[in-house]
């Protein structure tokens, strides 16, 4: 993804530049981006080189072409997945907006059939803060536009691609515009707009715009038609909403499916999770391309000042050490730095000892919240949860949370159900590629009295919930379906799974012991009369002897039962 975006610089303008800068996961392509930036220099001016002739052929690639070629990266590879992705992006946006505004989210999702059975209408309505009228077209009908891209902060959405990609997909597959109703408060009118994306320019096109009556005081309602295929089961909208309910106990979700079936996942708590704070990048987690990008956009003029103001944990002393190691003057003007110098600064940043980043920017679901969320939807008898202390991978703080639901009506003969979350967003695809799956598989559950086939999930009446919260979740792709295998993350998840495993094993032992106890108590009542009867058959005993034998036998057996415990 990043490489493509970097190649589309002309098209996406400043957002694309930011996209390149904000994507720390693909160093090679970022360097390419940075190289491209360098090409804005002298080589561009005049001349008749091969590059100039090629330049004449180079032209903007339309957004729709870009989208069509890359829709698998964005989660729109097929009609089934497209439906889920569209709803997912809309709901993620709603939840982020509500929480940022301090509103307990109330979200309603509807899927409506259309006369064509390969098309459906999707409605997502929230009670969020609403969007001011002027911004509506940009938010929904312009790719890579949004408030989240430039910010290092734990949020559901990260790039600002999602919802407009859904709009684009709808438009490309059905030709229908996206319609939005939004209202920002009681004293403001609700606005209705119909939007299309000018795919050549990546600019919104407003088809209709009018005031409308809406019973909500504030909120946003989007409606779009798209080519889609409905399904139930593991990767369905139903499953996504159910999992969302687990990770977001403070959310109320209503859902009406294409058959008109209504479902409500009610709130388990009325406390909003605290707002994560925005943090500056830590020097250890910055790629050289991102560094170059930051140098362009910062308000600082000189190197040392820039390091101090734009990074976390960089004290004047640390800034000085970096400059010294990079052999660049602390007072060097940023605009005058050579590419080679930037490389050296980047290298120095990773070598100097710097305090770990602050971790208070991460807001986990919390043990109580996770348990409440699981209880809401999983029919189990035992619920456990652990929130680990924050840890760092490549300068990014993260928190691992693991929840376990055990027993009850969960199926005992199937592999455990693994529910994965990144920043409270359910991950439904690419389970095999995800670090959470690897963590579960590489934990030896037989130590904890469970069955586990080789290289597979354990088989038990159990659901495992893994949540990774981080200002920057390292997904394996832009579709945000699986979390990459960072050793630090793998280790944290496994440690937590082992802790859960120990507790499960204790529970299993306790349950077995209790069952055994009851069985043995039962045993005495069940078989004592048979022993006496058999002795009577052989020896012919009078009633007092039988009674005495029965009484003694009970004493003997009770004594052995107590010894056994």
């Amino acid at each position, binding site marked *: 993804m990043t490489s493509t975006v970097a190649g589309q610089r002309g098209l996406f303008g400043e957002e694309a530049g930011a996209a390149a800068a904000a994507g720390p996961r693909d160093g090679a392509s970022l360097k390419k981006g940075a190289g491209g930036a360098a090409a804005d220099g002298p080589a561009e001016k005049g001349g008749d080189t091969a590059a100039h002739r090629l330049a004449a052929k180079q032209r903007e690639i339309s957004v729709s072409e870009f989208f069509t070629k890359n829709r698998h990266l964005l989660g729109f590879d097929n009609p089934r997945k497209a439906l889920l992705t569209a709803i997912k992006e809309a709901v993620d946006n709603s939840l982020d907006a509500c929480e940022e505004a301090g509103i307990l989210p109330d979200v309603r999702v509807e899927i409506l059939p259309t006369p064509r059975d390969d098309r459906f209408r999707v409605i997502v309505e929230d009670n969020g803060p609403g969007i001011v009228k002027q911004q509506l077209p940009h938010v929904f009908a312009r790719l890579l536009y949004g408030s989240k891209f430039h910010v290092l902060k734990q949020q559901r959405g990260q790039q600002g691609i999602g919802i407009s990609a859904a709009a684009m997909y709808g438009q490309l597959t059905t030709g229908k515009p996206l319609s939005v109703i939004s209202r920002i408060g009681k004293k403001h009118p609700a606005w209705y707009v119909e939007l299309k994306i000018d795919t050549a320019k990546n600019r919104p096109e407003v088809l209709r715009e009018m005031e409308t009556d809406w019973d909500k005081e504030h909120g946003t309602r989007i409606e779009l038609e798209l080519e889609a295929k409905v399904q139930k089961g593991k990767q369905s909208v139903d499953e996504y909403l159910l999992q969302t309910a687990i990770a977001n106990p403070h959310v109320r979700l209503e859902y009406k499916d294409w058959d008109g079936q209504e479902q409500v996942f009610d709130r388990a708590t009325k406390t909003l999770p605290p707002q994560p704070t925005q943090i500056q990048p830590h020097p250890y987690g910055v790629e050289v391309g991102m560094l170059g990008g930051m140098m362009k956009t910062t308000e600082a003029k000189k190197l040392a000042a820039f390091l101090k103001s734009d990074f976390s944990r960089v004290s004047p002393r640390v800034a000085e050490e970096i400059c010294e190691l990079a052999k660049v003057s602390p007072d060097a003007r940023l605009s005058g730095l050579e590419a080679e110098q930037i490389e050296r600064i980047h290298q120095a940043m990773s070598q100097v000892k710097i305090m770990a980043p602050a971790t208070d920017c991460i807001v986990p679901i919390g043990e109580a919240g996770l348990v409440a969320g699981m209880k809401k939807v999983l029919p189990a008898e035992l619920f456990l949860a652990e929130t680990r202390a924050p840890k760092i991978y490549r300068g990014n703080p993260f928190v691992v949370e693991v929840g376990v639901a055990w027993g009850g009506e969960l199926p005992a003969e199937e592999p455990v159900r693994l529910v994965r979350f990144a920043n409270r967003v359910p991950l439904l695809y690419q389970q095999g590629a995800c670090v959470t799956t690897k963590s579960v598989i590489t934990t030896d559950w037989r130590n904890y009295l469970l069955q586990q086939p080789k290289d597979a999930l354990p088989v038990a009446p159990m659901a495992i919930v893994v949540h990774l919260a981080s200002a920057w979740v390292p997904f394996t792709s832009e579709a945000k379906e699986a979390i990459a295998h960072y050793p630090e993350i793998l280790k944290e998840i496994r440690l937590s799974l082992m802790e859960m495993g120990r507790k499960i094993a204790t529970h299993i032992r306790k349950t077995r012991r209790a069952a055994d106890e009851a069985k*043995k108590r039962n045993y005495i009542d069940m*078989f004592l009369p048979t022993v006496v*009867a058999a*002795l009577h*058959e052989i020896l012919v005993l009078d009633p007092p002897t039988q009674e005495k034998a029965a009484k003694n036998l009970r004493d003997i057996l009770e004594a*052995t039962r107590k010894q056994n415990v």
Partner: protein
Amino acid sequence: MAKKSGKHKSANPELDRVTVQCIEKVAGTVLDTIQKKKQPELSFPVRSLSNVDYDAKKGFFELGDSVSTRTLTVNSVKTFAQTLKLMGLSKQMVEEDNWATKREAYYVSKNWKEARFLEQPESDTVMDDIEAMFSLHGVTREQLRFVPDEHGGAVAGELTVIDRDPTTHEPIEIDCTKFGTGAYSIPSSVEHLKFRTNAKFILAIETGGMFQRLQSNGYPQEAHCIIVSMAGVPTRSTRRFLRRLSDDLDLPVYAFVDCDPYGIANIYRTLKVGSGNAAHINQFFCVPRARFLGVTPQDILDFKLQDATHPLQEVDEKRARDALKNDPFFKKNKAWVKAFEQMLTMKVRAEQQALTKWGLNYVIENYLPRKLKSPATFLP
């Protein structure tokens, strides 16, 4: 419940009295211990090859001294109850002169509510325990009135069996030459049988096919012998029948089986000295006088059967080595050690039917007569 067979007097009142006494003694000890508020125990000899000794003078596998004790605890109360119930059933059957097969005994337990056996292997195990326990007092399973489910093998030749009518108990004489192309089959209980014969020896044959070949060619009459089909490892009643024939009529028993580790280590060994897991009954259920006529590994060379053999399978070799290493009978017989080593060197096995290579009746016309000229050379 076991079948009620009538009001007649038991065939052996003295034995029955001993049997009931034994049952009452075991139960009485259990009751006394309970009344003293102590945990009662039942002791059984360990039934496995590791707990048998072979004494050539006695001629059979003898039970060793290892004993397992079942102490009554909350964990063992079910089996304990079942053991006592089966003993109770045994006593009842002796008093009513009745009997039950293993399968029937299993179904009798279905009336014991929670204490019933769920599968027959459970009741078989408890029954084997009881049998082993009482074998220490010289009481057999037949005396406890538990009889095998299966009939014994087929018998042909110059033998008259004196049985009794099952309902009238009138004596019946059965002439084993009068079965035409069929044969007399050994009943499940043979203790009451009497015999009369002119035969000079008994031939115990592994396969039904070979039995038929000999019978249909009139071999028993011609050679003055009794032939018995074992059909694999001989059942208890076949072994007991052969033992009684051999004892009562003072006749030698010759085994004629395949030349492979199974024929030798399983079929012949069990016939001759009994088996490891039923060592408590071996004294009654084996034929110490039995000798091994063939087919021996040497026969393969002497009768030029090399091209009618099969290679030894891995399982065959394992069985042969196991016999040399762990079987007290073979270990103590140099002749057998040599024979096994010869087989392992040749790496082949030969079936009885391999002799057919030289013609369908070769076994009758050449092999058996030639072998029977020198019974002293038969393997022990």
